């Protein structure tokens, strides 16, 4: 077993202690690239034909309200016109104060969420303090950008990032594009194949004075609207009891609504829509 990093001498020219001004020192993905290049997804860059179309159709929505932010995603994964998974998790806790929702190619997207969460924890442990919310969003943007060669071959990953900054006591949402562009949204955002329909729904129902419960209802409605129009977005599965995953991040940190609570709200949405 060998300790990774510059011990006892990584050949940095700084002797036994390594380069103290190494910019990538607290970065986990930089560590992976250096130490375990085979494990790092973002380095694949072969040519050849476009990868098979195992793209996961998705809708992820996020909405900021007075005290925090809700982020939610449907549970369907598709491969062409086949539903390949019905209980997929697309919203992940990134750390105590933030969550990432993923859309795009399932494999690279879940890998990105996993590396991102490790990245935040790694930074926090090495530096003794968590990254700022903007710092987290920038890091995620870099990871999307690193994925660009894969994206060019069809394995696009587009995350949606939502978090609460306990220092400023504000919630923020960040959208991304496939090339690593990062765009902050003040009120709400959506991504994935059903993102457009969800956005219309959010736009119609958003009010600046929403509370936590109303914000959760609004994102559940938006997911319903997306599932109604987009075949690659799954609606609530009442037969199997599979419901959208709804997470709230506020001053108490990240919490997921339990299935029972979501089921009740979904039922309310269904009742309100009967006959429409």
């Amino acid at each position, binding site marked *: *077993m*060998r*300790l*990774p*990093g*510059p*011990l*006892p001498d990584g050949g940095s020219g700084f002797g*036994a*202690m*390594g380069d103290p001004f190494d910019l990538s*020192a607290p970065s*986990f993905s930089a*560590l*992976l690239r250096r*130490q*375990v290049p085979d*494990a790092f997804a973002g380095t694949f860059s072969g040519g050849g034909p476009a990868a098979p179309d195992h793209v996961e159709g998705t809708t992820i929505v996020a909405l900021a309200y007075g005290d925090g932010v809700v982020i939610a995603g449907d549970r369907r994964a598709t491969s062409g016109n086949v539903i390949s998974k019905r209980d997929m998790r697309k919203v992940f806790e990134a750390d105590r104060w933030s969550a990432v929702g993923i859309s795009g190619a399932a494999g690279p997207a879940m890998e990105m969420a*996993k*590396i991102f969460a*490790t990245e935040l*924890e*790694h930074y926090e*442990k*090495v530096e*003794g303090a968590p990254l700022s919310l903007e710092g987290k969003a920038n890091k995620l943007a870099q990871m999307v950008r690193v994925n660009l060669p894969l994206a060019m071959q069809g394995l696009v990953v587009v995350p949606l990032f939502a978090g609460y900054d306990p220092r400023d006591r504000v919630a923020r949402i960040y959208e991304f594009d496939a090339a690593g562009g990062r765009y902050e949204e003040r009120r709400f955002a959506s991504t994935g194949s059903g993102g457009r329909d969800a956005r219309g729904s959010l736009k119609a129902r958003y009010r600046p004075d929403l509370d936590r419960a109303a914000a959760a209802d609004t994102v559940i409605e938006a997911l319903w609207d997306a599932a109604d129009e987009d075949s690659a977005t799954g609606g609530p599965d009442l037969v199997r009891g599979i419901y959208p995953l709804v997470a709230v991040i506020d001053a108490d940190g990240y919490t997921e609504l339990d299935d029972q609570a979501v089921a009740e709200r979904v039922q309310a949405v269904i009742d309100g829509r009967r006959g429409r």
Partner: protein
Amino acid sequence: MPMMPYVSPEQAMKDKADYARKGISRGKSVVAVAYDGGVLFVGENPSTTLRKISEIYDRIAFAAVGKYNEFEQLRVAGIRLADAKGYQYAREDVTGRALANAYAAALGGAFTESFKPFEVELLVAEIAGDGVELYHILYDGSIGDEEGFVAIGGSAEAINERLKEAFRPGMSRDQALQSARQALVGAEDRQIGAERLEVAGLDRNRGRRKFFRMTPAAVASALAPAEDEASARADR
């Protein structure tokens, strides 16, 4: 070519060990005490930002004494090893034993090969099932596992003697903190205020990440009953 004076290997190793021990004994000591919920680290540390006790991974914590820049480097290397391993395999595959062995190898290698040995002493603790594993690694790479409690640093011997008397298996966290403080105070033979203590540990009842740090206020209130008792005894 200049002539190097002959130094026997025994003498060279002894000189290095003396040098390392001297460096370590200049700093303050840290103790680890197992309690009913996990393990508690207590160290005297006037700084509130330059830490001696740190989280490594979900169930693993690290404490060190000696030269700060050296153990800081080892701490970061340990976090890197743990995170990279947990990413490649699974989170439960990251163990304190593997980490302690890596530290022992790194320190042992530096001790024999380099001109100057590390002036550090390390503790690695892991919550494993119902118990606690404690590994003690010295500047020359020697490693041992300890049962229940252990002190590292210049006054380790005196503190360990006191802890041997005070330690009871299944103590509460506050009791563990009180006996750790008493052992530190007794060995140093001077008062150590709550605000000068760095207290952190692993609590098996927490979520995935078992590491916690006690604020100075929490440390003061946990120590308060013991202090009342001491002052009552003094009044009598």
